[in-house]
């Protein structure tokens, strides 16, 4: 009697394993809500971003290069199903290169485009940072409410202006990050020709036609220096409602980009065959468990 019960139990477990496997062949998926991210990365490509103030082994020293390397590392860590678009900022405007696309499936392409971002793509040379952030916010808003803006800049305004233009959006309507790039100590800005060959550094003499008289040095210093203008960026962060992060290591960017408050939920069709197959495997193993001698 004991044996008969045992037998039927073995039969049913094998039958269930067979049924589970038969379901597997229909390629079942479950629509599951997954936390993912939808980012528009806008990168400042004005010439001050060529200044070198990062000193980390294996990473570029110039601001733009460091930003690119940091984004590349972060792309790798974003969960599949997340979407990323790239844009550029110079003068008063932000321009989108491509709409956000899924990061895992298009990774090589996104990485290649990121790699090619260059200060020479600038359509003009000025840097009106506040206007750049405002237009980037507009571009982000046009791409749907769950798109987050991540704006990379050293915050340097050129030519200097006494105050930011007024922000006509609603603070916090678009969430995201302002990422401050560069160091606190002023460094010279390399002057490069169209082939990226160094021509020295930018000097006040070269810029005197663009700078107001008040901005010219009185102490006779000649190099036009640049540092991370955190004051400007934190003020912009307060007016726009974007978070602020100082880019110190690529890891800090990755951590900030994976923050919970920036997630959005997407329904992703998850392949569940492996779960069914594992269950079938367990059921099959049951047959070989130690038996009581009857």
């Amino acid at each position, binding site marked *: 009697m004991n*044996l*008969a019960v*045992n*037998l039927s139990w*073995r*039969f049913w477990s*094998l*039958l269930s*394993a*067979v049924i589970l*496997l*038969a379901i*597997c*062949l229909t*390629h079942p998926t479950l629509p599951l809500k997954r936390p993912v991210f939808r980012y528009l990365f806008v990168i400042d490509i004005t010439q001050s971003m060529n200044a070198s103030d990062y000193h980390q082994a294996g990473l570029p020293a110039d601001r733009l290069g460091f930003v690119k390397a940091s984004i590349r590392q972060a792309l790798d860590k974003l969960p599949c199903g997340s979407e990323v*678009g790239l844009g*550029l900022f110079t*003068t008063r*405007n932000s*321009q*989108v*290169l*491509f*709409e*956000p*696309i*899924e990061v895992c*499936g*298009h990774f090589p*392409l996104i990485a*290649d*485009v990121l790699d*090619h*971002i*260059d200060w*020479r*793509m*600038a*359509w*003009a040379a000025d840097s009106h940072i506040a206007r750049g952030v405002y237009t980037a916010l*507009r*571009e982000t808003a046009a791409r749907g409410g769950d798109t987050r803006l991540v704006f990379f800049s050293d915050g340097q305004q050129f030519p200097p202006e006494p105050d930011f233009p007024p922000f006509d959006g609603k603070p916090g309507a678009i969430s995201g990050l302002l990422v401050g790039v560069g160091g606190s100590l002023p460094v010279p800005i390399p002057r490069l020709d169209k082939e990226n060959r160094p021509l020295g550094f930018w000097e006040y003499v070269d810029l005197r036609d663009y700078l107001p008289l008040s901005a010219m040095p009185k102490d006779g210093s000649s190099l036009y220096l640049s540092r991370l203008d955190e004051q400007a960026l934190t003020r912009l962060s307060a007016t726009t409602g974007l978070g602020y992060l100082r880019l110190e290591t690529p890891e800090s960017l990755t951590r900030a980009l994976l923050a919970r408050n920036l997630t959005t939920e997407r329904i992703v069709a998850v392949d569940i*065959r*492996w779960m069914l*197959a*594992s269950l*079938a*495997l367990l059921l*099959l*193993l049951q*047959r*070989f468990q130690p*038996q009581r*001698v*009857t």
Partner: protein
Amino acid sequence: MSLAFAQPWALLLGLLAVIPLFKRGQPTLAYSSLARLPEDPLSLWIDWSLRVLASLGLLLLALGIAEPYLREQWVEKIGTGAHIVLVVDRSSSMNENFSGTYLGGTAHETKSVLAAKLLAEFVDRRGQDFFAVVAFSAAPIYVLPLTQDHEAVRSAVLALGGRGHGITNIAPGLAMALAHFSAQPVTGSRIVLLVSDGAARMEPETADALRQQFQDHQASLYWIYLRNPKGGKLAEAPKNPNESTTPEYYLHQYFQSLGVPYQAFEADNTLALQEAITKVETLENHPLKYRQKLPRQDMSGICYGAALVCLLALLAGQILEVNT
């Protein structure tokens, strides 16, 4: 052809496949005088085949859970498979409509929005082609390298509809477009599809260098010129020729001197633009051999199918078991 696993750790589960070789999957029957029974080769054979089946079943399940797949692979196909670089004007004049009226920031009928929409449809219809995208105004912008990832191309082409900035400077845009070909073997037609609403003067040295590059890369050029209806036609010599007032006429002359297949299409309204794109499409429909990348193919289904066969055989054996 190469095989890889999405979840290689699951292969460790395959070790479980040795269990049936040491343990019996059937309940034992108590029998008083086992030694008296003759050895039965058939029974032994059945016993071993059941064990092997179970072992194989476990192995195949582990393989399936490890998700084997064939890596992306290149296959040769006959089709159009052209390499097309889209060189699209993003200067500020592209924010206007065809009659030259400036439209505000959210306008839906600017030249750039129309061009982006029609180009996206063009890309959708050309499923076998490779596309690269260069945007240009004062400087060229590397938007996408030559790729068959049409979803990405579509996302880049749609982004071209955004607001443009800066002046029109065609030569560097064309140079960047041609550079996209240099890393690629010549496998089919190479096309530079220039979409712009204006032109600019070109330095003689730049013009010569560009001509050389067009010839080196054996690329054809199509120019979709988004013309202001009041503006001059490309083929008609302007009344008072001057390269700074009618640069498009001179650019057209220059393109004709490139020594590569060249055709210009003038469009001064949406319909004409659509027609121009359709014409480019019919021109580049010569079939040729090209290579296409096949996406990775999942192989776990085969493992599950094979495991199912093993389990069904086990189930049959189970049904035939002596029930006491």
